[in-house]
């Protein structure tokens, strides 16, 4: 009697645990893989890969634009010389612009003055992917939000949907505005959308993204958010970080730290 009662309680306890685990699993499923699934394993952190970036604004130098130049050169991003037609994959803007819904009053100098890097967040729940009518923009199994320039119809729905202004459109023929062409990455035609691709063409061959590789102060760390032993997870564990507009539920894969960390 006692034994069976004990067994019953044990079973009940494990059932409750199982139930909670399942609930957590379902939550992570709906939260991270509503559109373009990420392989989900045990509750909590899914298995597999989700590429992410850690941006250490304490290390990033205000006057430096090496990462921007490297990215735009390697990806054949044209310079039209006017803001209306501008195409940009990575750029710098003030904290107030990059974090418009963040805390704004009585800002510390290091936030108020310093230009902050802005790029595609490769959201786990990307609104651009949701609205694209042709899957020309899609989320890969490794979390990268990728573009197919040959499928894009140029409806620019993704530009309306992106809450970070990370997408650019080829309003004019980009090839006429390239000073040089890097053969490693395709040039684009009139009428398609483009954006940062986390250097999918480079990480596929085991290299780091161009911006990360170029940064001389190691302000950028790129890695697998689902690998708890990765350098990026180490940074996220030890530093206070922020995602852009977290209230929208897009779950950006780019994390910012503003205060200097312990070495």
């Amino acid at each position: 009697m006692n034994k069976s009662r004990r067994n019953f309680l044990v079973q009940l306890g494990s059932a409750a645990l199982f139930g909670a685990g399942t609930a957590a699993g379902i939550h992570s499923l709906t939260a991270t893989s509503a559109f373009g699934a990420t392989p989900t394993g045990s509750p909590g952190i899914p298995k597999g890969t989700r590429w992410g970036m850690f941006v250490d604004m304490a290390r990033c130098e205000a006057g430096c634009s090496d990462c921007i130049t490297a990215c735009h050169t390697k990806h054949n991003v044209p310079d039209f010389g006017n803001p209306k037609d501008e195409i940009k994959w990575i750029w710098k803007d003030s904290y107030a612009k990059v974090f418009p819904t963040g805390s704004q009053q009585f800002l510390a100098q290091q936030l108020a003055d310093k230009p902050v890097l802005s790029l595609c967040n490769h959201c786990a729940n990307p609104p651009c992917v949701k609205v694209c009518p042709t899957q020309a923009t899609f989320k890969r199994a490794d979390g990268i939000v990728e573009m197919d320039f040959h499928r894009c119809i140029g409806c620019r729905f993704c530009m309306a949907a992106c809450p970070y202004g990370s997408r650019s459109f080829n309003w004019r023929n980009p090839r006429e505005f390239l000073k040089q062409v890097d053969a490693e990455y395709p040039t684009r035609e009139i009428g398609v959308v483009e954006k940062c691709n986390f250097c999918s063409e480079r990480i596929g061959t085991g290299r780091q993204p161009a911006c990360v590789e170029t940064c001389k102060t190691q302000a950028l760390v790129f890695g697998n958010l689902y690998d708890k032993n990765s350098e990026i997870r180490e940074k996220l564990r030890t530093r206070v970080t922020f995602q852009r507009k977290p209230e929208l539920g897009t779950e950006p894969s780019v994390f910012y730290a503003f205060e200097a960390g312990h070495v």
Partner: protein
Amino acid sequence: MFDKALSGGRAYWLWLAFLSVIIALGISGYLRQLEYGLGITGMGRDISWGVYIAQFTFFVGVAASAVMLVLPYYLHDYKKFGRIVVLGEFLAVASVIMCLLFVMADMGKPMRVLNVLLYFTPHSIVPYDIMVLNGYLVLNIVCGWVTLEAERTEVPPPAWVKPLIYLSIPWAVSIHTVTAFLYAGMPGRDLWLTAILAPRFLASAFAAGPALLILLTFLLKRLTGFDSGREAVQKLTTIVLYASLLNFFFVGMEFFTAFYSSIPEHEHSLTYLFFGLEGKSALRPYMWISMVAGVSAIVILLFPRGRNNDRWLMLACALIFLSLWIDKGIGLVIGGFIPNPMGTVVEYTPSVTELTIAGGIWAIGALILTVLYKIAVTIKTQAA
């Protein structure tokens, strides 16, 4: 039946020739846009949809408003609409064609547009909008044409068309609801992120569409002597009045929610549109013209002396149409992009080429409407 469109007076042919010139200009503008890219328009990185998508949105509403004739006539057996129900259906046909053309004009890669069907994407709203718009176009062509043909040959309409007519009623609601969903589901675009966007779209549609129809009935009477009937026009006037009241009620709700809650993102677009933001206020005069025109029209229509007088009625309908054309055909779409996601105010002015192309599409709509109305009026006048 189409032969009726091929015989007309001097004014008829001059009008068609005039429209053809505007269309030709629009086509030449479009060819320039194809060559240069959409950069030839006023659109840019921050305001990535402009006149084309705004006009598309407005004319979806005009198209949907045909239901305001179809529903009372077929569902409530309101016989007085018998003479004009086909005018509503043909207005819907011309409007939907304009919508489709405006969307095509906005595509960066128009030759790839069928990718939407080839790679059907259930989580995007666009394929559904394409389906409901094209379906609505076919429904109105078939229903309008078949009932008119029956009238010409003096036989009752075939039984199979009845279910299609009934289907067109919820279908009209669906086109504007799905069109609202294009906007209302995007995080971070707070002017559009509102549950009453679809109801507001429908209210403005049922005001602007019938207002245009009333003006068209007066025009037809003057040009062809075709009388739509006083009671039918009065009924339409009632519809315009209540739909306008609902529309402005909804606008007021948007203002209350944004400004009483004082949440900055909810306030910003409305502040920009009506008061200006960061010293920029290009759309402010238009929004106030829209507001004053709309409210004046409602005041005119509220008083029997206003709505029962042809001149006042025409003025009120023109004001309502203008008001909602500005509100939905300019303010709503452009305003959604201001400020941009970084909180910066970047303004938009359409280019000459852009307006030429839009003008061409309006002219195509007017041409289709003229031809269809010519056929309808000729048949109805002969039958009577």
